């Protein structure tokens, strides 16, 4: 019985776990008197003297372990056992049992009031007389009003708990302005993210809608994902760095220094960090077309005008020579660098091999962009100027050999005549620049005994700078190994063809058709 469980409750309740228990049954307790004494009492209805000798009554009084906590009313009726079935006569058999209150009704629990406790001697079927009892009991009911209040309070608490346990952060600056960003000069700002919630926060910068990356290519965020413990701050470095990959689009106005970073909290909200600023247009990343139109330093030209001359075909749209203007044969910046190398570098070893100094390249950039000083200072290292020249060529919005000629270049690379034809078909400013650089390289080769330069090396190096395909090669960094391998071999093949193309123009002074 102790294992009985009422399954309709969740969790199931055992008997003993109920508020009120009624125990009804033939409990088989006897009266500790002899038969004569019992029968005498029965005749006089002296139930009180009988009950005092009742085993159950005594047990309950003594607070024993049996029926602990149960109560019983005093029976005000004859003992209900044992009768000759069908009669009102106590047992007349040989055994002649002593009459007893075997059949009892007990209860346990609060608020129970016994109104009646009876036996029913008129029923004669059994050797017992049935007993019955009427109770008035208090039953707990739900006070709908208060129940609703409590329910709502709990729901509110749960909601609050849920909201409290959402990740919470505070960002000290969500609007970053980078002023006067210069080419290849990084600017860094630090954003402090404080975890002001009660749980660790896992954050990550996520892609905006369908963008392939979470930020623009000129932007770098470290760390871009991390975990911050409650009460701790995390510093995030936001770096703007315009390099050869991104300069051209910023110059032409196609791209702006504007981005929104989405800082996503795992299981929580998203915050936006706006990045803005202005880029100081540089001759690095301009187009040859624009540069040959520019007489003064680029920094002194209004941005709108620059954007206009940066548009493809700007040269053919307006004939600036009509207004007394003139076009440079080659961009003056290229001339300045070549001139410097011509003066100081013809006999320098490891030209174009030794890296330049970053700080010096920045000085050269400023010199070319502002015209101050007018020429590249003689005190700078030739290697810095040489690297600047390579960088300059790599950055051109359109390579010296424009994109549209690229694949033709590769296919004609083994044929001198076709290569010559191709070059003569280039737009004037591109053709001039190409021939100008080739002439300079040929001159360098005249000093090969001193500078140690080899024609193949120069052909390869300048082939890479002046012939570029339209698509950037670095785009999908996540490619599989096989794809990477295939791409590498293709790259090597293209590199050889570019070098072969250049080789024609470095080995001879070619008269164009």
């Amino acid at each position, binding site marked *: 019985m102790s294992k009985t469980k009422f399954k309709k409750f969740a969790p199931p309740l055992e008997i003993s776990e109920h508020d009120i228990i009624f125990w009804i049954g033939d409990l088989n307790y006897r009266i500790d008197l002899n038969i004569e004494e019992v029968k005498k009492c029965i005749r006089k209805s002296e139930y009180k003297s009988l009950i005092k000798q009742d085993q159950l009554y005594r047990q309950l009084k003594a607070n024993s372990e049996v029926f602990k906590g149960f109560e019983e009313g005093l029976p005000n009726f004859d003992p209900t056992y044992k009768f000759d079935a069908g009669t009102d006569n106590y047992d007349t058999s040989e055994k002649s049992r002593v009459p007893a209150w075997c059949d009892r009704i007990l209860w346990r629990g609060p608020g129970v009031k016994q109104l009646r406790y009876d036996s029913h001697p008129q029923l004669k079927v059994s050797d017992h007389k049935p007993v019955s009892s009427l109770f008035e009991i208090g039953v707990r009911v739900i006070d709908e009003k208060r129940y*609703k209040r409590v*329910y*709502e309070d*709990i*729901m509110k608490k*749960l*909601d*609050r*708990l*849920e*909201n409290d346990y*959402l990740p919470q952060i505070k960002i000290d600056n*969500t609007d970053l302005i980078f002023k006067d960003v210069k080419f290849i000069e990084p600017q860094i700002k630090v954003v402090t993210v404080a975890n002001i919630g009660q749980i660790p926060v896992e954050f990550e910068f996520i892609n*905006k*809608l369908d963008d392939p990356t979470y930020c623009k290519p000129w932007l770098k965020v470290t760390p871009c994902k991390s975990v911050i413990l409650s009460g701790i701050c995390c510093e995030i470095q936001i770096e703007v760095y315009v390099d050869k990959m991104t300069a051209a689009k910023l110059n032409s106005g196609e791209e702006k220094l504007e981005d*929104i970073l*989405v*800082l996503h909290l795992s*299981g*929580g*909200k*998203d*915050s*936006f960090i*706006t990045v803005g600023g202005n880029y100081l247009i540089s001759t690095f990343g301009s187009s040859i077309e624009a540069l040959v139109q520019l007489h003064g330093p680029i920094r002194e030209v209004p941005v709108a005008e620059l954007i206009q001359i940066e548009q493809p075909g700007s040269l053919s749209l307006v004939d600036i020579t009509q207004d007394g203007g003139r076009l440079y044969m080659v961009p003056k910046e290229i001339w300045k660098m070549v001139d410097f190398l011509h003066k100081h570098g013809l006999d320098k070893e490891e030209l174009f091999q030794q890296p330049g100094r970053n700080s010096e390249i920045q000085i050269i950039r400023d010199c070319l962009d502002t015209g101050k000083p007018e020429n590249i200072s003689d005190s700078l290292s030739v290697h810095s100027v040489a690297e600047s020249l390579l960088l300059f060529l790599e950055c051109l919005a359109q390579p010296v050999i424009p994109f549209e000629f690229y694949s033709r270049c590769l296919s004609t690379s083994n044929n001198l005549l076709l290569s010559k034809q191709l070059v003569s078909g280039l737009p004037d400013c591109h053709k001039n620049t190409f021939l100008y650089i080739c002439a300079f390289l040929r001159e360098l080769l005249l000093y090969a005994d001193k500078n140690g330069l080899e024609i193949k090396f120069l052909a390869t190096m300048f082939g890479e700078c002046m012939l570029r395909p339209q698509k950037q090669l670095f785009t999908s960094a996540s490619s599989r190994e096989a794809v990477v391998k295939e791409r590498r071999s293709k790259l090597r093949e293209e590199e050889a063809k570019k070098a072969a193309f250049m080789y024609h123009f470095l080995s001879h002074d070619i008269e164009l058709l």
Partner: protein
Amino acid sequence: MTAAIKPRTMKMALVGDINVGKTSLARMFIDGTFQARYQASVGLHFHTKTLRDPSVTIQLWDTAGTERYRSLLPHYTRDAVCAVLVYDISSRDSFDNVRSYWLDFVESHAIPNMVKFLVGNKADVDTREVSDYEAQMFATNHDTFFMETSAKFGTNVDNLFTEAAKAVIKAIPETQFENGGIRLEDLHRKHDRRCCLAHA
């Protein structure tokens, strides 16, 4: 216990111009507070609140109204079952923008049957520029519910979300809703916790 232990969760998004009171509505609804000082929302916040009748948990997304973030909003509204389009009754512009921009915006990034609720907030202000008649007409013509609220005094705020929840239950059966793009994996965990707490 008569109440469902695991109420359905529905995602609702507040959209509208800046300074019409989206965050204030959310605040008042979630924890019954009001802050008079205006502070632009940067980013996307959400809070949850469980209603008793109907028994649902509302996950309320408060969006940034600032124009420069608009391109990012579809990311947050496209799986909402209800869009709350908020304007300020004392700003004609904010109402005109609901008509010319926001309604289109939510409709073009919506799940089928999404419930739309037009809300004229700041009903307590006496420099009204948009009549409730005009707004009601507009709402009726565009199959949109309508209500005026005051986030400052809490007028109609609970009512708004209760009505919205009822409308969602009617318009979007739970089965469809389950597939409606709500991040169920996030929610399940929370529900489990909730069950435990409810018994404790």
